[in-house]
């Protein structure tokens, strides 16, 4: 029984890893090899020089789009943790007459997936003049009702004794939050931060809509443009894809603990 389990898991694991292998294989093979009449699992030769030609080809805006993606992902991660963390704490811990009204407005947005409202958001962002602009790429994604809601639920369960001790020491809400609550919630911030980073790096629809000039493309938009084009250098495209997943694979290997926690928080409270 145990052997059957391990056999099933191993077969599944190989199937799951094949697509990753294919990205690397096709990226490092020659064009002739990729379109060879018979399929070979291992390419005849590994062409490391593909890297050099990828980065020296001026028609492929890979570096520029990777930098754009990185800037957008970092700003969205930091911005979301800052704004949604503060809001979540205020909603959880500061009694105020209209707090419930604000909470209802936040919860109401949970029923509406952001992607479904891309047309309305585009209408507003374009009248602000933010098309093909970093502000248009980053700012609309900062105000996640979902993240704020998760923070609120988390802070509701934060040990009150710690906060009361801070109060006795003369700290107000602001000081308590930054000196006591945040340093004691690093794991939770890391969990939601990793999720925000991965989501931002991989998002496609919004950057496609808003980053219309080539200079504003994120790496996903750049890859997609070449993928849907008629004539392409297939091996270069695969190598670019390999480079584009590298940052996330590193995040996965280094922060998987937080990622798993974040996914669990989202699935259970969401």
């Amino acid at each position, binding site marked *: 029984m145990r052997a059957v389990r*391990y056999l099933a*898991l191993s077969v599944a*694991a190989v199937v*799951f*890893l094949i*697509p990753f292998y294919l990205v690397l294989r096709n990226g490092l093979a020659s064009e002739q090899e990729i379109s060879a009449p018979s*399929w070979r699992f291992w390419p005849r030769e590994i062409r490391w020089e593909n890297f050099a030609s990828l980065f020296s080809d001026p028609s492929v805006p890979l570096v520029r789009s990777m930098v754009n993606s990185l800037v957008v992902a970092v700003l969205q991660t930091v911005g979301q943790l800052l*704004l949604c963390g*503060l*809001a979540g704490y205020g909603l959880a811990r*500061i*009694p*105020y*007459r209209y707090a419930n009204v*604000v909470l209802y*407005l936040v919860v109401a*947005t*949970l*029923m*509406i*997936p952001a*992607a*479904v*409202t*891309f*047309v309305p*958001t585009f*209408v*507003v962002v*374009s*009248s602000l003049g933010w098309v093909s602009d970093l502000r248009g790429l980053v*700012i609309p994604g900062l*105000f996640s009702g979902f993240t704020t809601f998760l923070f609120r639920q988390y802070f509701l369960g934060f040990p009150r004794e710690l906060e009361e001790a801070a109060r006795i020491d003369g700290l107000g*809400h602001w000081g308590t939050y930054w000196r006591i609550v945040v340093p004691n919630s690093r794991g939770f911030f890391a969990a939601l931060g990793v999720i925000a980073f*991965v989501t931002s790096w*991989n998002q*496609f*629809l919004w950057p*496609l*809509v808003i980053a219309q000039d080539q200079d504003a493309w994120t790496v*996903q938009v750049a890859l*997609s443009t070449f*993928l*849907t*084009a*008629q004539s392409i250098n297939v091996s270069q*495209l*695969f190598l670019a*894809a390999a480079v*584009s*997943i590298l940052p*996330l*694979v590193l995040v*996965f290997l280094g922060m998987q603990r937080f*990622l798993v926690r974040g*996914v*669990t928080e989202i*699935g*259970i409270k*969401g």
Partner: protein
Amino acid sequence: MRNGRAFWLFVGPFAIGLLVFVYVPIAWSLLLSFFDARNTVTPTSFVGLRNYADMLTDKPFLSSLGTFSVFAAFIVPLTFVLALALALLVNQISFMQAFFRSVFFLPTACSYVVASLVWKLSIFNGVRFGLANTVLGWFGAEPIAWTVSTSPPWYWLVLVTLRLWLQLGFYMILFIAGLQRIPQHLYEAAWIDGASRGWQTLRHITLPQLRTTSVAVVLLLLVAAYQAFDEFYNVLGTDRGYPPFARPPLIYLYYTALGSGGQDFGHGSAGAVILTLLIAGVTLLQGRVITR
């Protein structure tokens, strides 16, 4: 009063952003949906409910809802069953458990664009030497055109397996978390009562105990399928446009509001409002079922 100041200090910046980037767009679109607005985001002439009438009688719009239904009918049960199976398998082993969990979770690091690239140009590239056709060849089957074929089911197989690969690990993690919350003594009691370790405990203990997780997983899967865009756009779209079939709602909306035929924000807004109402209705209904 002092509390009011502290409250807005914390919540104010977020609340303003929520207003400007969520509520104002929805209100503006609601307004636009009653107007003609072609190539402009300001309402031009009032048309009443005509945009809505156009959308609701538009064949492609209705068939996009049909496309979503077909997609959901495949992807929701398949992901559910396979993610649960993986979770049960991974949860039962001790040696190399972390390794297998990581491998199944790793595709989450991949974007739909990269997955589309692999599926479209490598596995299912439709020529004789593509990976899928090579494997078919071992069994003596003829090569299949996959994504360039216009008749189901072939492009469905491509789209469904792609999404399965990408999202299975995420839902497996949710099921593992659910499994680990089941109290061990329930199983011990069942074994003492003579229940077998396999099917009987699964049927009478594991599945009922996973009810909350299962409802959450189904809801998340449905909402995710409703928003399907990335893989459809990248697998089936070309720079000449998108084929007239297999258009889920967001693909349809994208080409209506922002497509090459000019920007039409009146109809686009009406479509967005209809789609928002539909999904909000489903989530509300589901919420009722959970809290009941």
